[in-house]
């Protein structure tokens, strides 16, 4: 790692009425780095993402983004300085069409607030959105109201909306859950390639080890609010703690990681 990390988290702690959802979390993420977050259900992954993007205030600890302290920042300010996210449960505008969803996202991504008063459906904006739709395989749903879309398609839209503003740091919460097997790699390829070009650092939460193994530089494994392993994938997926808490230990630690990935798929 060279220079200041994009994200530097120190001693982060969060508890809810007796439940510890994050304790003593320390993470550095470098420019352009892709980090996978895995962990059992309820381990604190989403809470971690929520704290970084300002949805939750940490009980204690600090978060720095590009050398700037952003602990307890509001979500909209996080977005404005370039920290964006997608959601485990898609957050889209349900009564609007896919195109309108993207138009809003694109117009708000513009740094100039003045543009807010111009008509939403300007030709350039529509063209930009059409490109996005093309990329995310949303074109056929262009004029469908998102309420009528299936879960998986909404997920694509959700991610697309997070990406359009070209963030410096992107957090994806379970990007492929609910996305079908044929689509998930394509989707991730797409997101990752686009981001790689821009040098965006990505943190994504994922339960699908096929995905994790394929895209990440590094894995953070969570268990009961703590990071139990912070290592490159080949190391992390063989870590006994990771196997015990996240992957399952059906075949014993030695030759486990292979089968854990595919669960019989290979």
């Amino acid at each position, binding site marked *: 790692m060279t220079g200041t990390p994009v994200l530097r988290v120190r001693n982060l702690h969060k508890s809810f009425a007796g439940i510890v959802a994050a304790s003593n979390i320390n993470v550095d993420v470098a420019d352009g780095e892709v980090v996978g977050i895995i962990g059992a259900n309820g381990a604190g992954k*989403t809470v971690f993402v*929520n704290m970084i993007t300002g*949805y939750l205030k940490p009980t204690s600890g600090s978060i720095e983004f590009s050398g700037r302290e952003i602990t307890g920042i509001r979500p909209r300010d996080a977005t404005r300085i370039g920290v964006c996210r997608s*959601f*485990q*449960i898609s*957050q889209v505008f349900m009564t609007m069409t896919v195109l309108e969803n993207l138009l809003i996202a694109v117009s708000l991504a513009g740094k100039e607030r003045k543009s807010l008063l111009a008509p939403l459906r300007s030709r350039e904006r529509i063209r930009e959105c059409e490109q996005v739709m093309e990329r995310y395989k949303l074109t056929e749903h262009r004029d469908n109201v998102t309420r009528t879309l299936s879960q998986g398609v909404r997920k694509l839209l959700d991610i697309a909306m997070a990406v359009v503003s070209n963030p410096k740091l992107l957090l994806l*919460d379970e990007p492929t859950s609910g996305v079908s097997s044929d689509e998930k790699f394509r989707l991730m390829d797409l997101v990752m390639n686009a981001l790689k070009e821009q040098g965006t650092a990505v943190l994504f939460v994922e339960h699908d080890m096929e995905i994790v193994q394929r895209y990440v530089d590094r894995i953070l494994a969570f268990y009961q609010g703590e990071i139990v392993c912070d290592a490159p994938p080949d190391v992390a997926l063989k870590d006994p703690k990771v196997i015990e808490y996240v992957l399952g230990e059906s075949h014993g630690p030695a030759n486990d990681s292979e089968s854990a990935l595919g669960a019989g798929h290979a």
Partner: protein
Amino acid sequence: MQTTFTILLDGLSYASYLFIVSVGLTIIFGVMKILNVAHGGFYAWGAYSAAYAIGLAADLGFPDWFGFVLIGLSSMGVGLVLGLLIERLILRRLYDHEEVIIILATFGLFLVLEDLILLVFGVNPYFAYQPMVFLGSVELGGILRDVYSLTLLGLAALVAFACWYALDRTKWGKILTTVIYDREISLAIGINVNAVFVWTFVAGATLGALGGAYISPTLSVAPGIGIDIIVLSFAVVVIGGMGSIPGALIGALMVGILRAVAVHKFPEFELFVIFVVMAAVLMVRPEGLFAPVKARRI
């Protein structure tokens, strides 16, 4: 001391009145998510039918205490008839509409109920004072009190207890909670959502009618009595948190007692009390005192 006691008693009896007239509203809202403006109509119909029945019974020579039986019967009758008709014929078809639209439909219903009263009962007032006179008065804190208003406290306590028990201590309450949250999943786990809705609405309507019926002996039952009740009960329910029965109780107590203080000490503020309490509570707790739990969204 005497004044304090009087204020407290006045406040409690006004609070009881507020609670009884608003509890039906909060129940219907809690379960069906319908802000029922027609509640004022149920109230008025309850008052009219009780007053009519009591007047008739008095003419026929029934004893005065029989009025209490009639109050019960007529509120049940009104709740059952109007509740069933309205839920079956009108609301049922509107459940998938936007909330405001349903509010508006109930507003339309209110207007209709209001004028139906005029057509059925005419413009002249009805009186049903027999039960109130029957109970007489007692001296408390140096002044005479009518026993009837004091029984309001008991009735309110009874209604509060019954509602709390039904919703918090029986399986029905739990089932209701599920219906409240999601009609679809309720169906999927075997709840007869339609039946729940009908009976909830009938129960709410009956409570609304009971409010009117029980108050009628102290009133001149005349056209328009249902209008102010709407705002009053909305305010109480909002203060307490929509759909919360303890909320309605505490909301009613706050408004009742503060209003009594105002009337005794600062009468020029009486009109403002309810709105000031509402604004103040909402400033501190934007969703009322007992806000319902919200699902975690992200």
